[in-house]
């Protein structure tokens, strides 16, 4: 058989190879399948065709990188870390869309409802922001969240760095959404007052999720945060100053730092994110 002699055959483009023009992908695809043509080209071209075509086909099969991956690449993150971050379940489109909807609704409710004395009531956005981010952080890493978790755990890639990068990316993306919503609604959240409380509640959720399950982590964060808000409200304090004043912010910061250190310590000693018993 000598199919390359057919002038209508894709391999007619061989002349392009010889004249230095980049060959069409279909020619390369064909060469990978047709031993006759591959042999013919090997005789015509003094190069290691297996290597060349293998490489070109691999490039053809290689997936396009996502927008987030390209951004992380620009930030000079190592390839493995960029891939790990973009694979986080809480950074997938559907999850982010849900977060945007919830935050937007909270901001809208605050705008419609908060025309009066905002100091006395809790703005919905400030109440909800920590919960939304806590859920995203609890669902960004771990054996019950990541389908490839077991495989990634047996690679030399650092678990600590991967966890911190995913948590950082999740918090950063959600912070942008919350900041935009706050800015547009013009409420008291515009001054980034929500950030320390969000960090503390998120890290609390992450720590509990790491030792138990993501749902338990989210629940713990939610219960603690809502209890705090209710306690402040029932004590008759002005919510904005009691929950987001300087002393409260300091407490949130210290709590976030402590919880972060604890989480890193646990993961470095592989005491968290343990695989469940096989078959269960």
């Amino acid at each position, binding site marked *: 058989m000598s199919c390359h002699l057919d002038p209508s055959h894709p391999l007619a483009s061989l002349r392009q190879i010889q004249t230095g023009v980049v060959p069409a992908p279909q020619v390369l695809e064909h060469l990978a399948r047709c031993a006759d043509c591959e042999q013919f080209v090997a005789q015509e071209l003094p190069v290691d065709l297996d290597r060349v075509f293998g490489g070109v086909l691999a490039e053809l099969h290689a997936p396009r990188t996502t927008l987030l991956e390209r951004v992380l690449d620009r930030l000079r993150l190592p390839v493995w870390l960029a891939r790990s971050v973009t*694979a986080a379940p809480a950074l997938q489109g559907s999850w982010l869309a849900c977060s945007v909807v919830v935050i937007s609704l909270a901001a809208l409710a605050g705008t419609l409802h908060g025309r009066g004395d905002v100091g006395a009531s809790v703005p919905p956005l400030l109440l909800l922001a920590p919960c939304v981010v806590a859920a995203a952080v609890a669902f960004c890493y771990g054996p019950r969240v990541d389908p490839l978790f077991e495989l990634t755990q047996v690679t030399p890639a650092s678990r600590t760095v991967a966890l911190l990068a995913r948590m950082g990316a999740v918090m950063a993306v959600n912070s942008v959404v919350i900041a935009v919503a706050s800015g547009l609604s013009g409420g008291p959240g515009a001054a980034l007052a929500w950030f320390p409380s969000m960090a503390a509640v998120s890290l609390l959720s992450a720590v509990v999720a790491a030792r138990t399950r993501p749902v338990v982590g989210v629940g713990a964060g939610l219960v603690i945060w809502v209890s705090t808000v209710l306690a402040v409200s029932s004590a008759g304090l002005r919510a904005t100053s009691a929950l987001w004043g300087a002393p409260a912010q300091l407490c949130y910061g210290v709590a976030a730092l402590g919880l972060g250190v604890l989480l890193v310590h646990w993961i470095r000693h592989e005491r968290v994110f343990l*695989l469940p018993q096989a078959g269960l």
Partner: protein
Amino acid sequence: MRVVVENLSRSFGSSKVLRDLELTLEAGITGILGPNGAGKTTLLRILSTALAPSKGSVKVGGWDLSTPHGRTEARRRLGYLPQEVGYYPRFTVFQLVDYIAVLKELDDRADRHRRVRAAIDAVGLSEVARKRIKTLSGGMRRRVGIAQAIVADPELLLLDEPTGGLDPEQRMRFRRLITSLAADRTVVLSTHLVEDIAAVCTNVVVLWQGRVLFQGQPAQLRERAAGMVWLADTVPESALLSWRTEEGALRVIGPRPTPSAVGIEPTLEDAYLLVTNCALADAQLR
């Protein structure tokens, strides 16, 4: 690469899955054989560093898995196929294998992509390299798992139930692939299929209720059942196990059932059944 397991135990709550295991695995293919719940997956997870032991030590190529440095060095040298390979719905075959290759420190993009393609070729999935994994059959997904395990050319290859879901043709292909890979590395595969062990393994470990019942060559395991396998007309109470063969004869494992019973050459499966049933009988007596 040598794997040395000493006094290894693993518990989940009050459930003891592995009990004081002592094992040495050398280059070649070692099959870990055992019934469901014997502890095969837990053992492989510990060898792969995915799980820490409750007690005891594991050394992979001299690296102690109880230290962070030892674990990292071992991870650089091993490939692992878990019992169930998860996947991200948006991932194609190429993307998944490439993702693991990236995590395995294959940093050069062109070289990595060539290796990814070679691994996908080796398991016969070139035609579907660009397809999303969620569209593939269970057997094909299993082969994607094997491809990611071999992509970084590991010195130690750990395969948990590698032939589960593969059709007979693919099972043959897999056996050829594993045999060719085992020439210069250590391959450990866990299975409950005796024919897999008989086909490719140079060593076999029989695990039962978290304990090692046997470790040695398949021929040595077969020898355990010499003089214990019979074709008979009736089944006596002394028989450990018996079943009717396709030819209609009664195959009996145990002491000579009747004076007219004919002794036959034991298979690996006979020997495995004998060893595990003896252990079961001992446990019931205690």
